[in-house]
């Protein structure tokens, strides 16, 4: 029976073959740095790495920049504290990269290049054998230019390689008691800007402000405020879309988003769609 590396009582988890294989994979490498975003996948990976390797042979590193929503960063730090793995925070400078700021369809390639170029030296300094990201098997079908940046630098994606689906990661996280198990996807704020619209700190602050204001109204689950210049397009998840169609609530919604500096506010009639800006721009996976 697999025991905790630290000799402590095993962290509450479900015995499943894939997770066992993940722990074995990690132990075969001996040590690891996990690129941590605070999301479901990287939190799970860091938790398993902590159990398999112990706190002295793993490190999670969280990138911080204006493209990360303030709430996302706070919850990431909280998750790390609750799970108990060592965490280092680094300021990433993707907004200083003109290629990134131009916001091309492969913007994520430049973002991840900056991220991994910041994390790889940390792994070397700490003597950590491998650098990992939380890419899962479902991600492989999406448009993910950032994956190329990772592959170029030898970053490993063990969750994807071992066939972990998003659903499995959520279930395994839930079994472990991780608060992140039910967290909605939280892509960076730059994803709210159409390709070709320059990424600026001001625009990122606008979308962050608008989304936080909508959350403060009590809107849970997936929601996005897409930035179209003076016009904000709000995507609500299906349940919220039905609930928020009452006139008084629409006034609240408009007021909240307008408070972020948008002159016009509109509501997407289809609601939240992951990658909807890719659809708008005609960008296909691959």
């Amino acid at each position: 029976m697999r025991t905790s590396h630290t000799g402590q009582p095993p962290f509450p988890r479900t015995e499943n073959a894939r997770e066992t294989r993940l722990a074995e994979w990690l132990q075969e490498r001996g040590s690891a740095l996990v690129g941590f975003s605070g999301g479901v996948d990287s939190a799970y990976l860091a938790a398993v790495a902590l159990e398999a390797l112990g706190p002295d042979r793993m490190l999670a590193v969280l990138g911080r920049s204006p493209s990360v929503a303030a709430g996302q960063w706070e919850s990431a730090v909280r998750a790390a504290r609750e799970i108990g793995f060592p965490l280092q925070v680094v300021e990433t400078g993707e907004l200083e990269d003109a290629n990134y700021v131009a916001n091309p369809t492969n913007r994520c390639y430049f973002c991840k290049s900056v991220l991994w170029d910041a994390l790889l030296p940390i792994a070397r300094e700490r003597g950590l054998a491998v650098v990992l990201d939380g890419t899962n098997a479902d991600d492989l079908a999406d448009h993910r230019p950032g994956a190329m940046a990772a592959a170029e630098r030898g970053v490993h994606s063990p969750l994807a390689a071992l066939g972990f689906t998003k659903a499995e990661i959520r279930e395994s996280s839930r079994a472990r008691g991780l608060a992140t198990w039910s967290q909605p996807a939280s892509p960076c704020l730059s994803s709210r800007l159409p390709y070709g619209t320059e990424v600026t700190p001001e625009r990122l602050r606008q979308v962050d402000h608008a989304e936080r204001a909508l959350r403060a109204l009590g809107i849970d689950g997936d929601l996005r405020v897409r930035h179209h210049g003076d016009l904000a397009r709000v995507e609500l998840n299906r349940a919220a879309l039905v609930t928020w169609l009452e006139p008084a609530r629409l006034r609240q919604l408009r007021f909240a988003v307008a408070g972020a500096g948008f002159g016009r506010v509109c509501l997407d009639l289809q609601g939240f769609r992951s990658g909807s800006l890719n659809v708008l721009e005609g960008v296909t996976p691959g």
Partner: protein
Amino acid sequence: MSAASLQAALEARGLRCRVHGHDRMAVVTPDDEEALAAVLRVRDDVVREGRVQGFTHVAVELCGVPEDASLPGS
């Protein structure tokens, strides 16, 4: 993609609004709150009409509220 054709189609359904195109997104601007409510009641049909006209996204502008309108409960 034709914003004018979408507007004509919506007006034929009795919806009082203007339509502007932003690339593949159609922005439907109702004349007032009553017209907004009417659009929202048939939003699935509005989206379908939008697709027929080549739009991938259809959004309705939240308008008709005076700038100094008070919020419920305030």
